[in-house]
């Protein structure tokens, strides 16, 4: 009955621990790689120019390294995507959580999941060859590459994220809160807007921010349908370039290691990582707060 030292158990636990730690190594790997190349980049380009120069032309003879035009493209396409996905996603969530029968709910949710499972390159094709031609008939002056069409398609892609996560949040709101309001003679709509929505707010906000983060990081749709012209504009009708699309553009060319063009993609990636990191942390924090409130 006296203690035996179980070597195998200890070895296995150690191996499992290392596996769990591997995710931390991945994060460090990302930060290290990005930081190293970005550091090299800023040896040649001033950080001030990077942040305030209004032109991004590293691939031209006369080089400018202002990240603003790329972020303008990212911002514009993200804003369009959110303008589509937020209202539709939120209304769907309210409908599914408060109005729809259980049967409809269980039928619709997996279909929404399919929408999220479609590869982004497919959405890119759809934006470029289906949505843009249709929009060109409706909107005069829309060029073949633009931020409007990929923005809309990106919005459609993000609907399931917002609808599903917001619906989860609303579903977690205790029935007693609704009953209190219904007993006072409120309609379902009033209960949804005045009781459920505020109660689930942090959960809904988390889903929204996660959607923004997804749109900011989305690559293939904008790389295919938005163009390759970095430009500081809020005009959704003209070709632009996002941070992500720029990385794809350089990766497709034959840029030798160590050149300034090569380093630009890491600097761009670093900026992208920082932005999405903060968005993800806010979303994580909001979700956690919501869970502590209701679960």
């Amino acid at each position: 009955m006296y203690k035996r030292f179980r070597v195998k158990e200890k070895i296995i636990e150690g191996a499992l621990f290392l596996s769990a730690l591997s995710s931390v190594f991945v994060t460090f790997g990302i930060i290290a790689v990005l930081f190293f190349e970005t550091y090299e980049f800023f040896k040649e380009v001033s950080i001030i120019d990077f942040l305030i120069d209004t032109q991004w032309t590293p691939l031209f003879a006369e080089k400018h390294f202002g990240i603003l035009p790329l972020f303008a493209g990212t911002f514009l396409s993200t804003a369009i995507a959110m303008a589509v996905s937020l209202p539709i996603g939120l209304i769907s969530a309210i409908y599914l959580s408060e109005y729809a029968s259980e049967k409809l709910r269980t039928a619709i949710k997996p279909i929404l999941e399919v929408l999220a499972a479609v590869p982004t390159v497919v959405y890119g094709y759809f934006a470029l060859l289906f949505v843009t031609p249709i929009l060109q008939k409706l909107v005069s002056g829309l060029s073949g590459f633009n931020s409007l069409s990929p923005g809309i398609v990106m919005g459609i892609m993000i609907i399931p994220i917002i609808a599903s996560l917001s619906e989860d949040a609303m579903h977690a709101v205790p029935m007693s809160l609704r009953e209190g309001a219904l007993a006072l003679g409120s309609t379902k709509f009033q209960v949804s807007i005045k009781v459920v929505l505020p109660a689930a707010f942090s959960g809904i906000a988390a889903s929204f921010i996660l959607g923004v983060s997804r749109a900011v990081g989305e690559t293939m749709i904008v790389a295919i349908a938005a163009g390759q012209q970095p430009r500081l504009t809020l005009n959704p009708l003209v070709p632009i370039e996002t941070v992500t699309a720029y990385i794809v553009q350089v990766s497709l060319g034959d840029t030798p290691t160590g050149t300034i063009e090569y380093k630009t993609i890491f600097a761009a990636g670093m900026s992208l990582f920082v932005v999405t990191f903060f968005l993800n942390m806010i979303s994580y924090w909001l979700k956690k707060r919501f869970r502590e409130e209701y679960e």
Partner: protein
Amino acid sequence: MDIAFKIEKLNNFYGNKHALKQVSFDIPAKSVTAIIGPSGCGKSTFIRCLNRMNDLIPVFKLDGRILYDGTDIYSKDIDVIDLRRRIGMVFQKPNPFPKSIYENIAYGLKIQGINKREVLDKTVEESLKKAAIWDEVKERLNDSALSLSGGQQQRLCIARAIAVEPEVILFDEPCSALDPIATAKIEDLIIKLKIDYTVVIVTHNMQQAARVSDQTAFFYIGEMIEYDKTDKMFTNPSNKLTEDYVTGRFG
């Protein structure tokens, strides 16, 4: 009679909650000892100390000594895995593994490195026979254990405990999830088991304690109030609280 467990000034804590207070008594071997008391009195906490199942709860702390066979089972050099092999347990709700009936019984042997088909077959049959369920399942040993009824599942769990040849079997309210007919079968079984095993049973059902046990301990709010022969406990208890409880005045 031989003493199986010697409990000395046992105190239990869950975080700040003092769950058991200064419990001391001896549990004899090869007999049935019942632990009774109203819910929340610490009887389940107590029985889970005997095979150190409480170790799995992070906030659990223990003070005092439990000697099994003369050895302090909470001493640092005790191997808890070996201990649990010698002291088996049957739980409140039947908890068969989601595997075949055969696999449920054979598991205890397999983890000891016993893989010989003949040994396993023999043990499976013998254990199921001892647990009085062999006739009901012998035709379908490869069916999922989850296809059995609740009472059958619980007897399967008893067979599973028997298969590793323990010295003690602990029952933590084994019939609380069962109907009266299934309960009667388990009770018969427990009475038979004491020939070979030391049995400790926690129950909230006083009649059950009276029917199956040789001695009974009465717990109340973390303290052991009285411990005596079962006959005496139910006919002529020394303590007023015990009397109130066994006559059904509270609980």
